[in-house]
């Protein structure tokens, strides 16, 4: 089935330019064009659209208000803003309604890539409720210790960007949100970010404060509340995995960007589980109950009880929120790295190894049958299996340092 995409812009020539350039996508996409938000909302197709691409400022209804209507009538749709300019106050209107912000002029390939990736992962979720959940994510839980530390730092007279970034990069929800909002074109130079320090710097202290305190992108929670979900160890596990993935990427002499991507992917690789647990707790409890183990490896149970696994959910969120492809891939396939489409050592490989090694702490043996904690075929194909021992030592040193 073709994906249906609606483009809205008050400039007819812009729509015509897009139509001419996207003609070669006509086998893959069904494309609709509207010259105003009102015209778009009159379309009978609005409820079953897969994606919407809209301008921000238009006569009559603006982009943010239009997307709000789209959320009401079609909450599953991927919502992308393609605008020449955005005011700061308008930018906050976008939080929660716009998934990604692309600046005009935007390379058509970037637009195609963004839509393709989001749509592919969206269809991988299969379940409409899940698609709705991820596309309209409320605030994510943040451990009270981290939350209070962040608020205290933000309340200081001269908060330190570095300390804020340090605190942010210990929490999944904060890191994902900060990277997401900082990727909005209005906050300075355009481009995808994977470095929480850069993201915090780009946003500035006041905006981080507004995001945390006014927009409530994360909620403080007591760790006990998530204990019955078996998620109380999630943060510790995620931070360990992020650090280890980063060390492994360094050890493999990857580029600076890929090292950052390995860190962020390591931190966020289980964000899908967090999304599930907080937004669909009943479904997640079933998984937990069906799982024979108490640790975070519940793949089999997930496959049995859910339409998809937590990796895909996390990857869809990452793709929707504009995180770079290698991060999306690493989150999606961190349990099944051979599904990835690269034969090089990528952040995916780093996260996979880090995940496998950190699982060992929870009592999993790397060669445990049934659960492929480490995919040795994959590692052999990459020719890095013999380095596992030294990575395990890095991890052991890291644990000691903790």
């Amino acid at each position, binding site marked *: 089935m073709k994906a249906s995409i609606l483009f809205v812009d008050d400039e007819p020539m812009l729509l015509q330019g897009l139509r001419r350039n996207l003609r070669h996508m006509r086998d893959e996409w069904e494309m609709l064009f509207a010259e105003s938000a009102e015209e778009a909302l009159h379309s009978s197709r609005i409820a079953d659209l897969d994606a919407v691409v809209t301008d921000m400022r238009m*006569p009559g209804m603006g982009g943010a208000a239009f997307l709000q209507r789209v959320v009401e009538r079609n909450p599953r749709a991927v919502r992308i803003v393609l605008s020449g300019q955005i005011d700061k106050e308008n930018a906050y209107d976008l939080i929660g309604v716009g998934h990604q912000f692309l600046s005009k002029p935007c390379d058509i390939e970037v637009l195609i890539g963004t839509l393709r990736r989001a749509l592919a992962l969206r269809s991988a979720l299969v379940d409409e409720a899940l698609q709705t959940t991820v596309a309209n994510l409320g605030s994510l839980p943040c451990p009270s210790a981290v939350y209070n530390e962040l608020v205290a730092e933000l309340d200081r007279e001269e908060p330190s960007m570095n300390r804020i970034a340090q605190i942010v990069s210990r929490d999944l929800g904060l890191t994902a949100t900060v990277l997401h909002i900082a990727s909005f074109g209005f906050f300075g130079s355009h481009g995808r970010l994977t470095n929480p320090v850069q993201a915090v710097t780009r946003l500035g202290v006041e905006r981080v404060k507004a995001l945390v305190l006014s927009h409530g992108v994360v909620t403080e929670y007591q760790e006990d509340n998530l204990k019955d979900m078996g998620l109380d160890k999630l943060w510790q596990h995620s931070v360990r995995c992020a650090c280890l993935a980063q060390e492994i990427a360094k050890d493999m002499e990857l580029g600076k960007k890929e090292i950052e991507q390995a860190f962020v992917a390591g931190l966020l690789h289980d964000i899908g589980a967090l999304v599930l647990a907080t937004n669909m707790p009943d479904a997640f409890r079933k998984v937990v109950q069906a799982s024979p183990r108490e640790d975070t490896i519940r793949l089999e149970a997930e496959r049995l009880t859910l339409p998809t696994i937590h990796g895909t959910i996390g990857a869809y969120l990452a793709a929707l929120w504009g995180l770079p492809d290698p991060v999306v891939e690493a989150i999606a396939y961190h349990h099944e790295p051979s599904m990835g489409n690269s034969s090089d050592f990528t952040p995916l490989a780093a996260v996979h190894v880090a995940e496998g090694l950190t699982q060992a702490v929870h009592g999993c043996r790397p060669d445990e049958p049934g659960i492929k904690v480490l995919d040795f075929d994959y590692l052999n194909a990459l020719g890095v299996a013999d380095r596992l021992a030294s990575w395990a030592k890095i991890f052991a040193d890291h644990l000691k340092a903790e």
Partner: protein
Amino acid sequence: MSLIARVPIRTKIYLVSIIAVAMLGLLAWIFLAVLSSQRVLLEEVESGKFAKVVALYQQFSMISRTHADLLDILHVQDGLLAEETLYVEAKPRLLDLNRIVEQMDEHRESLGFSAADAMIYDILIESAQAYLAAIVRTVEVASVEVDLVDRHMHDASEAFKSVETGFGTLMERTEKATSQAIAEARLGAADAKAIFGLIALATAIALLFCGWWLARAASRDLHSITGTMAALAAGERNVAVSGLDRGDEIGAMARATEAFRRNLELAEIERSENQAQRMEALGILAGGIAHEINTPVQFVGDNVRFLKDACAGLGGVLRACQALSAGAGDGSDRAAALQSLEQALAGADLDFLVEEIPPSIDQSLEGIDRIAEIVRAIKEFSHPDEADMTVSDINQMIETTVTVSRNQWKYVAEMALNLDHSLPPVVCRPGQINQVILNLIVNAAQAIEETGQQGRIDILTRRDGSWLEIAVSDSGCGIPEKNLEKIFEPFFTTKAVGKGTGQGLAISHSVITRKHGGTLSVDTAVGCGTTFTIRLPLEQSADSEAA
């Protein structure tokens, strides 16, 4: 500030000079008076002494001469004289003596003796009378009893001696008194000199003090004003000027300095306000302009990209045509070429290309025109030399401002320009007038936005006698009467935080009225709309032009 500070320095110097001259005059007068009184005193003393001494000497000499005559007479006759002869010869001498004694008594007053001297004089007169009596007796006796003559003669001599002694004493005393009087007069003159010196010293000290005090009072404030000037020169503006309430020249200087400082400060505030407004305007515009430019850049890019792909497709078709044409004669080649042409045609999506290429070229050109127009308008709008008065076309300035601000109004309003193209050029600061027009357009757009409906902005220019009129009208929400008085006040705003600082109309007002000698008025009705009217004088422009 004391009374002294209210008196001009010039008056103070006059005053001190007058006091100094007066004091010197007084001193001279005292000096002369002392000198003259001393001379009089000395004269008096000299003349008194002289008179006394002369009078006494005359009387004494007369008594003494008469006495000598009587002695001669008495000795010549020597007891043998007849009564008649004695009388004839002695009587006139006795009468002389009697007259002298009487005269002495009479002249007593005129001799001006002191009390003690007068007593002595009385005794002297008594002695003289006693002598007179004794000598009279001697003469009487001489005619009767010659033997008694010697005894009475002796008595007379004794009395004469006492007269002589009295005269001596009196002479001595008179001399003594005179020399004492002279000494006293000299002493009085010395006292007068001391007083004169003291007064002179006091005057000098008083004058010195006055000078010092005046100099100090003046120099303190002068010093402070110098410091203020130095601080102003160094760029400091928030400095206090002292001596403002003085009434003298320093006060005038302090007030002039304060006025200078205030003007500097105002000029700087105004400059920074203008700068702030410029920055604000640029901030508002930057986003809109980015949008205005980025949209055509997007579709021009898309179209050119499409044209590139289309060219590739058409190129394939053309090459196939070329191959077909080259191999036109040969049967098998022709069939293959035909087949490849058909393939190329099928792949090229020819109908779509033929239909879309012309509009994509047109739209690309239009997009480029739009970008060029905006860039030109930005360049014209920004006018970096805003401080200079230049001959400008108001209509063109309005068109430029409307273009750069398009993004501010196009989502809420239609823009209708009704410009009088016969308007003469105006001498103005175009950068500032652009800011004002931009301000009015942005305000109009915001007023319309508040109504939540699509509205209309009308800009009209016309000539009204010696005035040029620009009217910016909107169909917006209008201004409530209670706000109407305040709209030109700085920092008055009803806009949400971030939408405006409330400086726009205040600065616009100042630019029109103060910098251009015009007026900015408002006519509004709540719910119907608002018209702001700028009136600029054409006459003044002509003058400036001529200058």
